[in-house]
Structures are given as C-alpha cells and as structure tokens.
C-alpha cells in the first residue's frame, strides 16, 4: 500500500445542490474528457458508476483466483498429510478419502475468497489512506449529511485551475475552491 504515503495532488472542489445534480455533473465531467475526478455524497446514488464512466470492478476475478487457490491448496494439503507424509487408516477408509476433506476444502475456499474480497477491495480503493486533500476544505464536512461534491485532481490531463473552476461553475457547481492539501 505504497499509495497511502504518496502525497495526493491538489484538487478543485465544487458543491452541488442535490443527488440529481451530482449525477448530471458526473455525466458532463465524463463527456468533457475528465478522468481523474470523484463524486462524494452521503449515500450511494443509483447510476453513478455509469455516469462517471467507471468500468466493472475486477474484484470478482481476484476472488475467483483466491478461491481456486484455496480449493487446490487445501486438496493438496489434505492429500499430502493423510496419504503421503503420514498415511494412517481411519475407519477402514482409503488414505485419501476426498469425501472426508470436502468440508475443510470448502471452508478454506470460502476463507480465501473472503480474504481476496476484503484485501482486494482495500487495495483497489487504495485504502487505508491516512490523509486526503479534501480534509483541507471546511465546507467538505457537509458531505456526511447533506453535501454533494465533485473533486477534480490536478493530475488530470485537462487540469488547469481557472478552466476547471469555470467548467465546474458552468455545470452548476457552487462554492468552487482549490484545496492543495498543505497544512495552513
């Protein structure tokens, strides 16, 4: 998680009045070619992924790979421990009685999948992140109850302070401010 220590570039914040406005703003941002921007709201908004042009999350594939590793790894472990390293006859059944190992193989498959889902989600979201430039904005605190914000990062190819500010205002953004992330 190297990214959590890399300082984020400055951002330009704009506030919107309602979830609907935030949704249209996101669509217009995407249509104008911005890629490094984010939308902030107190609750999930239906259709936001499409409006922002976010693709499908690759998390499912991570979980799939992790689950398969758990499945095969555990089959291998049960086979090796009970049929190779320490063969032992239990209730007259063959050394490698796969039936008996299905519960533990299943459990480990689920456990590895859960690890894949949890840590995969964290790393895809670049979490944990201890600092974010939005912390520099007083107004941004409202995002936890009634504020809807768009933030544009300075590493966007189209980023120029004046242009971004003008564009955000043209699509209905209020209280446009630049937050550098430096302590002041």
């Amino acid at each position, binding site marked *: 998680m190297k990214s959590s220590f890399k300082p984020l570039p400055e951002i330009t914040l704009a506030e919107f009045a309602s979830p609907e406005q935030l949704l249209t703003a996101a669509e217009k941002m995407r249509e104008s070619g911005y890629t490094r921007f984010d939308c902030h709201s107190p609750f*999930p908004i*239906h*259709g936001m*992924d499409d409006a922002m042009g976010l693709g*499908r999350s690759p998390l*499912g594939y991570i979980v799939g790979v992790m689950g398969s590793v758990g499945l095969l790894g555990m089959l291998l472990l049960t086979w090796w421990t009970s049929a190779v390293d320490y063969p032992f006859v239990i*209730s*007259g059944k063959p050394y490698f009685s796969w*039936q*008996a190992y*299905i*519960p533990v193989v299943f459990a480990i498959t689920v456990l590895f999948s859960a690890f894949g889902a949890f840590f995969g989600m964290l790393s895809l979201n670049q979490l944990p992140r201890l600092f974010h430039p939005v912390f520099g904005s007083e107004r941004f605190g409202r995002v936890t109850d009634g504020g809807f914000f768009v933030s544009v990062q300075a590493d966007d190819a189209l980023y120029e302070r004046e242009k971004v500010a003008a564009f955000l205002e043209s699509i209905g953004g209020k209280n446009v401010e630049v937050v550098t992330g430096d302590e002041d």
Partner: protein
Amino acid sequence: MKLDGTTYRLTDTGNLGRIALITGLVFLAVSAIGYAQNPGRFFPAYLTAYVYWLTIALGGLFFTMLHHLTGARWSTVLRRLSESIAGTLPLMLVLFIPVILGLHDLFHWSHSEIYDPSSPAFDELLSKKEPYLNTTFFYIRAAIYFAVWIVLSGVLGRTSLRQDQRHSAGQMQNLRRVSAPGMVAFGLTLTFASFDWLMSLDAHWYSTIFGVYIFSGAFLAILSFMVLMGAYMRKSGVLADVITVEHYHDIGKLAFAFIIFWAYMAFSQYFLIWYANIPEENYWYLYRWDSSWKSVSLIIVFGHFVIPFLGLLTRAAKRSVGFLTSMAVWILIMHWVDLYWLVMPTHHQSGAHFSWMDVTTLLGVGGLFFWYFWKRYTARALVPVNDPNLAASIRFINA
C-alpha cells in the same frame, strides 16, 4: 400471441394451450397401454413424471410466498407467472389418483403381511414403522398436503386477482400474512410429502435431509421454467420490455446460488451416510454406485452441479437470455434425471432399464400441467397491473 400494452392482457393467446392439451391426452392414453401391459413398470414411470411436474408447481408456490414475504420489488413482473404455476396444484390432486391406484406396485410397505408376525413376509424393522407407514395415515397425510397447497395457492392467487380490480394496502398485508405461516406449512408438507412419495419407496432407508434436497431441486426447476416461459414470450414480442435482461440476471443469480445449495444438500446427505457406513443406510448409495446406475450417479454429479455451476458463474452468462435459456433446459433435464435416480433404482436395483413409458408419462402429465397453467396464465393480465411495485419492477436495474 398478441399483447394489449395497457391492460397487459393477451388478445390472442396462440394455440400453445391446445397443443399442450392434445399432447397430454395422447401421451396419457399411450401410457395407459403401458399400464395394461406392465403395471409394475408403469407406476414408477408415472410417479417420476408426476413428482417432476409437482415440484415445479410447488416451486411456483414457494416463489410466490417468497416474493410476498421479502417484499421483493424486482420479481413483481414474474409474480403472475409463479402464481399461475402454483395454480396447477388442484390439477395435480386429480393427477395423484394413479399414484393411489399404484400404491401396492410402488410401495413395499403398503402390503399388510409384512407387519404380520405369523407371515413369512414379516419384516421386523418395518413393523416398527407401522404407526407411520400404513395406508390409512398415508391417505390422511396426502389429504393434508393437498389441502395446504391448494388453499395457499388459491388464497394468494385470488387476492392477487382482486388487486387487478381495485388495489388496497390491506391486500398486500393479507398476502404477507398468509405467506408467513404458509411458508412454515409449505416446508413441513413438502418435507413429509417427499418422505411419503419418494423416500418410502425404499422404506428401510431414511435421510432427514431428504425434504430439503427435493426442495432445492424444485426451486431450481421453477426458476428454469420461468426463464423458459419468459424467453418464449420474449421471442413472440410479448412482455419483452417488461421482463428485461435485469430480471433474467436476477433469476440467474438465484439459480446459481441454488445450484450450490442443491450440491450442498446432496453432499451432506451422502457425506454422513458414507462416513458412518452403517449397512441400513449405505446400501441405498451402494446400489446406485453399482451397475449402470453408477453412470447415472456421475451424470447427476457433473450435470446437476459442475456444468451449471461453471455455466452460470459469470455475469455475462446470466445476462444472456439465449445462454440462460439453454442452461434452463439443461437444469430441467437434470432435475428429471435426479428424480429418476431417486425413484427407479428401488425397482431396478441391478441396473437402469429405460422404458418408453418414462417419456410418455412425462409428456402426458406435462401436457396437462402446461395446458392448465397456460389457460390460467393467459386468462388474466400477465403482470399484476395494480401492484404499487410494478413500475419499480419494470424499471429495475442491477446496480
């Protein structure tokens, strides 16, 4: 088929119902010849076919109650479909008559001499089960099952139809109030019905999870059946923009989950018996693992679990109506193989003996089932038009 877009009623129902009725009657008549020739082979074939369509009807009842209980919105467009499928239960009562006629051919325990200590056929183990396994109590139980199923499907169906005339909040509450105890009654009746009509074929054997196993197959069957019906109407341009890809995606998700659930139940049943290895339980699996039954067992392991599991794994598979339809056909075939595997080995322990009656009874019962279902489904609006959740259901999108 032609649909009136505002009332959601078919102005032209097509001739599917008539074809199904003729198919049903013709094949039942052909099966009757089989009955005259070889009743010992006819009855197991009929029981398999009967239970096959019965599980679909019961799946419809379960889906309807589940919809009401969870307050689901997405499945509102499918509700009429599942209600009409559950509406075939009165017909299933009539079709149960041949099972009663074949009681002695089907169920070893129904012969009274096995309970008579002076008879050479006396069976000590079964005589201990006589308080449950006797014909009188069998009939009483069957009457209770059908009463519960017919009352439940009837009340839910009629309340839903009244909603089409005039909607009131009380109706939604009633549907829910009936569904809650209905679900408990459904669980008990399905479990004991599967004990009575399937498990007791081999009355020495017992498995407490058997009812859940049958239930999981039944739910898969109803989901597949609804996919088929939806896809069929979609092809004719009916409800194509009402039952959308989003709904197929959700049915696909449920089917995928219940493929795993079915395997979980099947394995749990097998696992405990394999582990304990007690003769009075394990022989049931042993003769299904000997002779040609072994191939059928393997077909079920791969066909009922591995193939549909991999097939329905991806999002793209669940969102492709064409692929989902072929998967639904596959699951419906596998559901029949599964029931065949439960019923037939009892009568043919030495190996699978396929008979033409297996097919004719399936098509015979199925034809009548489909005719009755289709008649009820097309006689009313194809979706609950006054349901307050209908618009949300049509608009529904998987986030």
